[in-house]
């Protein structure tokens, strides 16, 4: 597993963002250059003084955009060079309480918008920056401001923002219609077409109705939306009806991702009640996928290891698990499709890999 947070010491007293460089020729404003390194630490020098990072080879950090927090003496690798999986956490607050939440919300909020914006401006050319939470649109005004300024300054960047879409309104439409927002995709969760079931899963009464309203505004904004449905026992049999709903009412979406459960956060303690062994009960998933394809809605499977998906649907199983939390198990060693396969979450339980076999 790749460590996203590392112990570090800095001269500066306040938090700062910098990009780490090994090569003087690549140095730009705001960067820190490798000063010295030994077996256990690497020291960089930059506009914020000296920064010493422990437990990592300097070559692994080259080009990374990091956030140093002197108060807790750690760096956070916000944007790792060469990785397609970089996500910025806007807040840990959320107004939904989904049964399977992988990152259970907290009550407090630490405002880091200024630092995150600096990080975005230092991003490698042409990447997609993920934005996540908690719920980012709880701070909609600051979020939109940051997105707009970064997209204005950097026409090569794109954003992928995870949002429960409980906060979009008519007042946002004009703003979101700006062409720069074509470079923003909203990842929006929808678990069922039945309002009661969806509300139950997200732990908030009225969430489905509010989500429908937001989706209407997003559609009118010409927004790009990736619909996300995490598969859990309560919605397995409701998937075909959801597919029908999507093909009637949400044809504007860019993609529909049906996602297998991640064994972390709330899902860890509720695993037995939530986890669906799709290799044994694929029929509702298959029906949903076929309905979507029939009506021209691009659907795909996230976090589904390829050998566990019936062959005709395998081409829809994307390598979706982020590099830093992805693992392969013993049976994957000789598999021919490993490179195209999502693998497993680092924290995936060993007993749930039964039947995994090389292709």
């Amino acid at each position, binding site marked *: 597993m790749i460590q996203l947070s590392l112990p570090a010491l800095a001269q500066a007293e306040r938090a700062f963002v910098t990009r780490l460089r090994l090569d003087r020729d690549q140095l730009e404003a705001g960067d820190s250059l490798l000063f010295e390194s030994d077996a256990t630490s690497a020291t960089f020098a930059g506009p914020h003084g000296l920064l010493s990072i422990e437990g990592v080879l300097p070559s692994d950090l080259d080009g990374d955009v990091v956030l140093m927090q002197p108060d807790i003496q750690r760096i956070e690798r916000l944007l790792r060079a060469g990785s397609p999986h970089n996500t910025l956490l806007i807040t840990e607050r959320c107004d939904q309480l989904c049964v399977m939440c992988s990152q259970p919300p907290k009550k407090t909020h630490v405002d880091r918008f200024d630092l995150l914006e600096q990080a975005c401006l230092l991003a490698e050319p042409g990447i997609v920056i993920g934005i996540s939470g908690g719920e980012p649109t709880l701070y909609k005004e600051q979020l939109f401001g940051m997105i707009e300024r970064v997209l204005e300054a950097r026409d090569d960047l794109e954003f992928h923002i995870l949002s429960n879409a409980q906060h979009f309104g008519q007042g946002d439409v004009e703003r979101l219609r700006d062409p720069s927002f074509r470079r923003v995709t909203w990842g929006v969760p929808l678990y069922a077409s039945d309002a009661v079931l969806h509300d139950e899963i997200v732990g908030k009464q009225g969430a489905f109705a509010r989500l429908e309203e937001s989706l*209407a505004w997003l559609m009118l904004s010409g927004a790009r939306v990736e619909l996300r449905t995490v598969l859990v026992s309560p919605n397995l049999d409701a998937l075909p009806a959801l597919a029908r709903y999507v093909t009637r*009412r949400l044809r504007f979406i860019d993609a529909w991702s049906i996602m297998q459960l991640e064994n972390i956060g709330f899902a860890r303690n509720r695993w037995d009640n939530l986890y669906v062994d799709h290799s044994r009960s694929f029929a509702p998933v*298959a029906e949903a996928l*076929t*309905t979507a*394809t*029939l009506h*021209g809605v691009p659907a795909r499977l996230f976090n589904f290891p390829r050998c566990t998906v019936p062959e005709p649907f395998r081409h829809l199983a994307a390598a979706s698990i982020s590099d830093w939390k992805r693992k392969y198990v013993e049976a994957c060693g000789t598999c021919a499709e490993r490179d195209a396969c999502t693998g497993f979450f680092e924290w995936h339980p060993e007993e749930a890999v039964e039947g995994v076999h090389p292709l």
Partner: protein
Amino acid sequence: MTFLPLRVRATRSGDMLCVNDTGSFFATTTRLLDRLGDNQLTPSDLAFLKAEGHAIDPQDRLGDVAYLYNLAERATFAEQLDYLILVPTLRCNLSCSYCQVSRAGLNQPGFDWDDATLTAVLEMLDTLPSPRIKIEFQGGEPTLRPDLIRAVIERCERFEERQFVICTNLQRVDDEILALFERPDLYISTSLDGDALTHQRNRTATDSNTDLFLHNLKAVIDRYGPHKISALPTIDPTAPPDIDTLIDSYAGLGFDSIFLRPINFQGFARKRHSASREQDAAWRAYHERFVRRIIERNWRDRSTVLEETYTSICLRRIFQPGAERHVDLRNPNPLGIDYVVIDHDGTVYPTDEARMLSRSGVIDLSIGDVISGWQSEQRDLLNAHASNFDDPACQRCTYQPYCGRDLVDDISRYGRIDMPRLETEFCRRHLHLFDFLFELIYDNDPATRYSLSRWLRLDSNPERLGARYT
């Protein structure tokens, strides 16, 4: 509650097919229609109509916007020119009985692009804003001028996506032509009228030409595989070939898509095949038998999936709006916007059929030329009539959301565009085709569902393709 208008048509099997403006459809019985008319809908009727987008609650903002989106999705969006049909020469080394374009003789001077035309074509390519380009080289026989083909292709290097198609009779496949064929972005399109005898009668005339064609066809298939090459049969509807013989001649070469195309009422065919103005019931029955035979063969031999190209396109248009870019069936049908034809003399036509009609002296449908442009009154005049939205017959037609409008076809057959729609060949052909398709969609026979599911590019065979409410 707002009810969206439903167009209703009795299917061959006695169901009532209901379709709304967005193309969303279901089959039902007259009982539901009676309840709707009498304002006696049950709660379950209402729930079904709402879920399927046929009725919208006043509070249902998403339903409202989704309806507008789905409606817009059915309309062609054409903005940028990114598809060109180029005729570098009108000369040809064959003389087929139904030649579409009034060909010129092999050694006749004055039927190739001159330098000014070539320069204008190349300069026009430089101005195109689209990152994609598709170019079809037609003729005449374009391989008579590989130098012109090369010049065009070389000028297209800057496009992110390129696709070239050479429409050729494959009489000439020498090293110079093969060098072009080698390009991975180049495809070959040819005519194959069935078995060798039929092909020779219609096209190649002599044994040696026929042998040359078949030899070259096999050679390019061996070299590049069947997916680089497509072939189309042209069929004399008064004497169509035996169905299995035709399928075998295609399947035997590895082709899985067969475009069953009756002689086009264009060019020389107007005189030599005057019966081709209207296709009769016999032709439509032949087409149905052909498709049903393919369904049987697909079911029996699962190793390949054969399709009748146009049937398959129309089927996908029913379910997957926007998935096809077939310029012969779309609505509106913008002319001279996203694709044009540039003739051997630099004249610009909105479609290939418009070029043929003009060549045959029926009517001048040119919209400009490649040097001075084609943003012309003629083009605007055509576009003012290029949709089926306002046609009184189409407005009432169940199949309007799936159908298109073909002005040039009407002009070709009737010399006018204001024929009552139901009396046109275009309408009869598509009414029949969509009737047939909905019969297949609601057919529970597993063989039928298997083929339809493949033509719809599905990963499984769903229990039903069309919604039913009883």
